[in-house]
């Protein structure tokens, strides 16, 4: 099973944030590395979506869609900056 990247969850993120997010830049709270959301390491086929830091593999984002709602955890991101 291949690991994908943030491009694969562009639609989901748009749903969650109300706007295009793949070009936004995130900073990993664990190691400080910065990447565009499109370059997050994404695990799609799970009970939820997990995005990890490409550098240290720490969890950056978890999104669980259930009962018509999205539960979003961004605690793994120290910062998320728009274009």
């Amino acid at each position, binding site marked *: 099973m291949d690991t994908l990247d943030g491009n694969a969850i562009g639609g989901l993120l748009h749903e969650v944030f109300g706007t295009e997010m793949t070009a936004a830049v995130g900073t990993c709270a664990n190691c400080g590395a910065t990447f565009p959301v499109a370059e997050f390491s994404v695990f799609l086929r799970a009970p939820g979506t997990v995005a990890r830091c490409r550098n240290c593999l720490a969890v950056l984002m978890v999104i669980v869609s259930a009962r018509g709602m999205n539960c979003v955890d961004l605690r793994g991101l120290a910062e998320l*900056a728009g*274009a």
Partner: protein
Amino acid sequence: MAGTKVRGRLSGPALPRTTLSWQLATVTAVRTETATVRTIELNAAEWAGHRAGQHLDVRLTAEDGYRAERSYSIASAPGEPPAITVQRLDDGEVSPYLTEELRAGDELELRGPIGGYFVWDAAGAASPLLLAAGGSGIVPLRSILRHREQAGATVPVRLLYSVRSLPDVIYRDEIDGYDADGVSVTYALTRQQPAGWTGHRGRVDGALLADIAWPKSSPGDDEPVAYVCGPTAFVESIAEHLTKLGYPPRRVKTERFGGAGGP
């Protein structure tokens, strides 16, 4: 979200804030590209247009309500109706349906366009382009090439297209047609080559990339930009080679596809 500093406007300057909703689209035509690949042309009444490199999400619903969703890169150029090119995966759930069962007149749900990172706009483009495709990774790059041609852009392009064998090349005639238009095309045939093949054999390696990639230049408008798309292993290998050649990470854009069927 406590603890995450959110800075700046999250919407990019080139993309208006839009609601991304599912809409019903009709299949207007299907076209066979190779033995396992088909292009599906769509008519979606609420399609707002797209940029080269973007993708759309497709949703299928079975009679009992079972749903499956997949993302596909948009194969057509901005200004053209949306079209997707789908490769049939042997163990796929959706791709066999799209490549074998679906026909003109059928409907499917889609939402899009999606993406603001793996995109290229002809307007104001100045940087030479290095496009690297593995298997069906050619799809968004073809949208870029088509857009470039239709917009009359003149930035030089080098395309590296890695596939298993020549019959697996998607859009062959169209790509070969760009050859005279400032686009230099290199095919890498990884598993099977025709008799007399003088091109690259086997997987793309550092030596081939060093040969065909734009030499890194100093930062500025003429610093090349690379778009790399295909199976994860292909993308990571190319990205690593480009890093070794001195391409800064911000000038290498990547899009990883899942599933087998790569070179």
